[in-house]
């Protein structure tokens, strides 16, 4: 066996090197040199992002356990950029007196989950996939409970790990049934022998709900608001963007690559879940007063929209999915960034606290407004184009009714996004949030996000680049 073939896993190795360097630095650094930890980490991670952003030719490692296709580079780069933005936004939080000593852990845990997602994305075998999934979710639960002395965070951590274990066990049960009926765990081999007998159908359903849990589709979403609310805001944004982005991509590739023979069946499942997720999440989002819970439901409904791309099962669907994730990342991280700046300094997360924000913090309000408009899908912001492509992918496959339902729901979603904008710009408040000064890294993250929202939609080469590799899935 040629061990040198392992070296082809560039992304994974480079991320591992970053992680280990940071870990070593954290252990041996003196109190004084710890000042350089964050700049070093950001530089290393940016470097890692830059050197790994060029797609390569497809290859396999370890007899197909690890299966790379060029599209994965784009997905991993999107996750990298998102993680970078989150690290920038968490900068201030980690410099707080209470969290200073936990800096190293934060970075190491975050990057571990990212590494897990890398493996999950590039897996060619169910074992590899499962290892990736767990590598992503176990550090995640510690991150959720990062403020371990905080009652809510601890509760959220417990809820997350319990739900995740529950989902994993059901998923693992499904995998074992798949192995039992097909005699293999390799994706490409399963694809040829998986015909959709009753037992296989049951196996498929058990397996796939594990991913539905990750993406938090209704009715597997109940953990989401509690965990989002309880955990630290930057972690919430990580959960809602990075973790979800990786999972939807994996779901798409698995469905198309491993289960092409039962496409009509899984299309039925996704159809129902898309309608449920979008509608139920919208219904709940309207009532939320806590903005973090509000965004939890908003992200559930966004996940429902993503299903419209997956349900098509075509190359166009693939391209629109990756594009959607890219745009969703910029928009959602901008909103979470504003939230985290405000929460950090004032501890305020209720919608009523945001009344009159524009008077005191016009820049933050405008960033938030642009991001919310993008989430709602209003032109000329990128969110309009990403929804447009997703809808066209679904329409192309004849899902007219589904697209119509989704369109109706965009009206509802527009309503609740506008509620926040109304609070910031129109509603009066006797004691609005005082004028805040964002820290420099957070400012950079806002610039990146705003530019992303404005440019990714208008410059079509982003979409065209993604579309180039969507045929190879």
């Amino acid at each position, binding site marked *: 066996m040629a061990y040198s073939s392992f070296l082809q896993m560039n992304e994974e190795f480079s991320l591992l090197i970053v992680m280990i360097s940071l870990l070593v630095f954290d252990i041996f650094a003196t109190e004084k040199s710890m000042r350089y930890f964050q700049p070093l980490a950001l530089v290393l991670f940016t470097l890692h992002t830059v050197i790994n952003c060029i797609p390569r030719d497809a290859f396999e490692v370890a007899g197909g356990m690890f299966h790379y296709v060029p599209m994965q580079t784009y997905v991993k780069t999107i996750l990298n950029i998102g993680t970078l933005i989150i690290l920038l936004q968490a900068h201030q939080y980690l410099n707080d007196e209470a969290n200073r000593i936990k800096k190293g852990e934060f970075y190491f845990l975050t990057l571990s989950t990212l590494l897990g997602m890398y493996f999950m994305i590039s897996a060619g075998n169910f074992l590899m996939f499962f290892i990736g999934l767990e590598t992503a979710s176990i550090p995640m639960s510690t991150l959720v409970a990062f403020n371990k002395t905080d009652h809510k965070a601890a509760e959220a951590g417990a809820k997350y790990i319990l739900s995740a274990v529950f989902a994993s066990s059901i998923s693992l049960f499904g995998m074992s049934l798949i192995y039992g009926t097909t005699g293999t765990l390799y994706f490409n081999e399963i694809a040829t022998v998986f015909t959709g007998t009753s037992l296989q159908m049951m196996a498929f*359903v*058990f397996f796939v*709900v594990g991913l539905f849990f990750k993406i938090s589709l209704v009715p597997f979403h109940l953990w989401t608001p509690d965990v989002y609310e309880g955990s630290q805001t930057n972690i919430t944004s990580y959960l809602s963007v990075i973790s979800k982005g990786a999972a939807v991509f994996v779901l798409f590739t698995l469905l198309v690559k491993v289960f092409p023979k039962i496409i009509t069946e899984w299309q039925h499942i996704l159809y*129902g879940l898309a309608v449920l997720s979008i509608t139920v999440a919208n219904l709940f989002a309207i*009532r939320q007063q806590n903005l973090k819970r509000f965004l939890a439901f908003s992200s559930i409904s966004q996940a429902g929209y993503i299903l419209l791309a997956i349900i098509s099962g075509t190359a166009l669907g693939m391209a629109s999915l990756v594009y959607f994730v890219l745009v969703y990342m910029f928009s959602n991280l901008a909103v979470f960034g504003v939230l985290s700046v405000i929460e950090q300094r004032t501890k305020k997360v209720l919608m009523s606290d945001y009344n009159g924000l524009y008077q005191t913090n016009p820049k933050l309000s405008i960033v938030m407004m642009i991001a919310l408009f993008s989430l709602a899908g209003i032109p000329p912001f990128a969110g309009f184009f990403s929804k447009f492509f997703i809808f066209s992918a679904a329409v192309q496959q004849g899902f007219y009714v589904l697209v119509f339902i989704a369109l109706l729901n965009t009206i509802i979603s527009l309503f609740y996004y506008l509620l926040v904008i109304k609070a910031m710009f129109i509603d009066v408040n006797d004691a609005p949030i005082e004028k805040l000064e964002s820290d420099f890294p957070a400012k950079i993250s806002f610039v990146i996000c705003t530019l992303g929202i404005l440019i990714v939609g208008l410059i079509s080469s982003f979409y065209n680049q993604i579309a180039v590799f969507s045929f190879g899935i």
Partner: protein
Amino acid sequence: MQYTLLIILLPLLSFIVLGLMDSKLKPKVAGAIGVSVLGIITLLSYISAFEYFYLHKIEGVYEKLVPLHIEWIRFNEFLHIDLGILLDPISIMMLVVITTVSLMVNIYSLEYMKGEKGFQRYYAFLSLFTFSMLGLVVATNIFQMYIFWELVGVSSYLLIGFYYTKPSAVAASKKAFIVTRFADLGFLIGILFLSFYTKTFDFNILNSGDASIFASTAGVSFMGISVMSWTMGLIFIGGAGKSAMFPLHIWLPDAMEGPTPVSALIHAATMVVAGVFLVARLFPVYHTYAPDVLHVIAYIGAFTSLFAAVIACVQTDIKRVLAFSTISQIGFMMVGLGVSGIGGHEGHEGLGYMASMFHLFTHAMFKALLFLGAGSVIHAVHSNEMNHMGGLRKYMPITNITFLIACLAIAGIFPFSGFFSKDEILAATFQFSPYLGATMSFIAGLTAFYMFRLYFNIFWGKEHKHEHTPHESPFTMAFPLVFLAAVTVVAGFLPFGKLVTADRSEYIIHLDPIVATVSIIIAVLSITLAALMYMKEKETPKQLATTFSGIFKMASNRFYIDEVYIFITKKIIFNLVSTPIAWFDRNVIDATINNIGVVTQWTSHKTKRFQSGQVQQYAYVFLVGTLIIAAIMLFV
């Protein structure tokens, strides 16, 4: 010639800088930014014109250059929206016209707009307009042109409504926007038709003369008119809106509510000729596939020209006289295009096209000069009304001389530039139809009459009592006048036939001696008439007005076209169409949306129990969900 991209982008940059600076700049700095950016791009466009006309000629034919081409949105293999730069003789000519006039207006405004609230905003809008207009003329495809076409409309709206505290300015800006937008609807439908049948937006493909592109339109007709006539007719409606052709001309006189330099730039020299440019850009298509539409354009142009010239004879607001004169002159350009053919140097078929472009060029210069001169007068006497002026020649010598030069040019007196371009249009028209030619000659006479009525009323005649003595404008306002006057004097001798022609190859102009002599005689006679009537205070004009009181009143009221529009919109459209639609909107559409809201709130309230916060319940729901899906998959 990649640097032409800079010509387009620099004004955008200056718009962004001036727009984002939030009035923090000192007016001087804002003005300096505007003027210096314009100075640079004017220089660049002159360089590009020299380079193009000297170097890019192959076997006597000017090349079509595409120095920049980006595919922006792709629909399918054939149909994609691109952004790019197309350089050919007409777009190069337009670059020169737009940058020159815009530079002059930018310099002029330094003084004219001094102390206005929103000085910086004014310069930002001017830059936006310049950017949009430049983007329009270099468009490589009809969709890009449409995008910039609308941007031009927006910036014109912003500039007309610059004095937004004045209700009449706000009304005028809305009127201009709505009327042209309405016309653009026709343009858009035309674009969709064209792209549906030809599968392309690209001008170079459309104009390539390749008949296979239009193969699918063969034999398709609607209501007895071929589909290409419909298409090109609809596209012309867009052009007619921007170029103020009858009956879509009603917005232009009102647009004079904007600052006078804006009128010089937008409503005299550049934006209003966009319609002419559009027809010229698609001329090969018009000529080959919709010759009947081209003839209709000629007749509409001639009628508009006559109509506007008659109205111009009785207006008393000097800017409105100039506005109607602009409409009338654009009519001339449209006639020139409408009667033209392509190529054929012996038979002079291409004369009309060349003459029309020539007239566009010379008209831009002398009409901008007239407007800036009028601005200078208004600046001095603080009124737009003719009878508040008179005898100003003593106080404002520079304005007087330059205004006179422009009047002589527009009247068509040798050797000023208007003589050459107008005579070529007349010659081409006579070739097409002697009757039309005679009509146009008559309009030319009217033009000379009303322009000199204007001139004598302002600078001669009885002196009006002024609150303070009028004074000559300072250097920053006088310089543009002198510069444009110099251009007006020499532009007629430009070898235009060698530069801008329908088939991009050289064309030797022969002035038709009979037409030239006759038109000079008509012009001189008209000027003499105007001199007799208006040079000294006399009773003749008033007597004439009472004798022909009917037509005088109708012309003063602009033949009641505005009233017709108001009747149609308020009485017919509002009552018969809008009221039922409003009812439907309120009671069906709004009600549906509101009910979605009500139902949503209600359901949202009813289902909140599911989110209990207990993790064991979450797991339970999770499991039930899984089992239900599995059951559906297995048993349904």
